[in-house]
C-alpha cells in the first residue's frame, strides 16, 4: 500500500460520511455484494430520553441499498464526532483494513449518542487501489451512570 494506512482510513471516513450527507442512495455503492451491515434502526421512533439506539442487521448490497434509500432523510441528517480511530491490516496477505472508531452521533434536535463502529475494507478485485466495505457494525454505548444494584439472585 503506497498511501499510508492512515491516509486510506481518513479518505474512507470522509467519503463514507460525505456520501451519507450528500446522497444516501449512493452509500450502498461503497459495499461489496455480500457485505454485512449492522446499523441504526431508523424504522423505530428515537427514544430521546434514552442513552442508546436500537440497531438492525442487513446482508447483501441490495438490502443495504434499500435501507439507505428508504431512510435517506434521517441518513442525510446524521452528524458525527469521531473521538478515536484505531486500524490494523487484516485478511489475505494483509491487504484488507480493520477500522475501529468511537465517538458520538446525533441528528437535528437530538442529544448525542455514544457509539463504537467496526468496519472492514477489502480490496475491490476489479478496481485496483480501491476498497469495498465487507463489514460495518455500529453499537451504541450506554453511560450506565446509576450505581450498580447487586441483583438479589433468588435461589
Amino acid at each position, binding site marked *: 500500500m503506497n498511501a499510508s494506512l492512515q491516509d486510506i482510513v481518513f479518505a474512507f471516513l470522509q467519503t463514507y460520511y*460525505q456520501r451519507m450527507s450528500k446522497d444516501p442512495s449512493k452509500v450502498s455503492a461503497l459495499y461489496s455484494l455480500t457485505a454485512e451491515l449492522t446499523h441504526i434502526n431508523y424504522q423505530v421512533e428515537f427514544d430521546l430520553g434514552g442513552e442508546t439506539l436500537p440497531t438492525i442487521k442487513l446482508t447483501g448490497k441490495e438490502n443495504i441499498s434499500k435501507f439507505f434509500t428508504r431512510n435517506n432523510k434521517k441518513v442525510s441528517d446524521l452528524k458525527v464526532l469521531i473521538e478515536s480511530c484505531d486500524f490494523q491490516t487484516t485478511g489475505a496477505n494483509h491487504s484488507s483494513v480493520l477500522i475501529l472508531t468511537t465517538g458520538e452521533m446525533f441528528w437535528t434536535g437530538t442529544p448525542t449518542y455514544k457509539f463504537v463502529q467496526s468496519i472492514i475494507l477489502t480490496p475491490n478485485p476489479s478496481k485496483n487501489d480501491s476498497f469495498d466495505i465487507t463489514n460495518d457494525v455500529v453499537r451504541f454505548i450506554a453511560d450506565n451512570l446509576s*450505581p450498580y444494584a447487586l441483583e438479589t439472585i433468588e435461589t
Partner: protein
Amino acid sequence: KTGPSEISMQLPLFFNTKEEDYSKARSKRHALRLRILQNSSEKEE
C-alpha cells in the same frame, strides 16, 4: 494519537456538523445525565 503520520487525521473529527451543533446536542445529553445522577443520589438518601 493512533497513526504514524499525524498530518491528515487530527482527532477529534467532525463530520456533517459544526462545533456549535455538537455543543447543543451535547448539552442535551449533559442535562439527561444530571437528572439520572440526581435521581440515583435521592434514592440513596
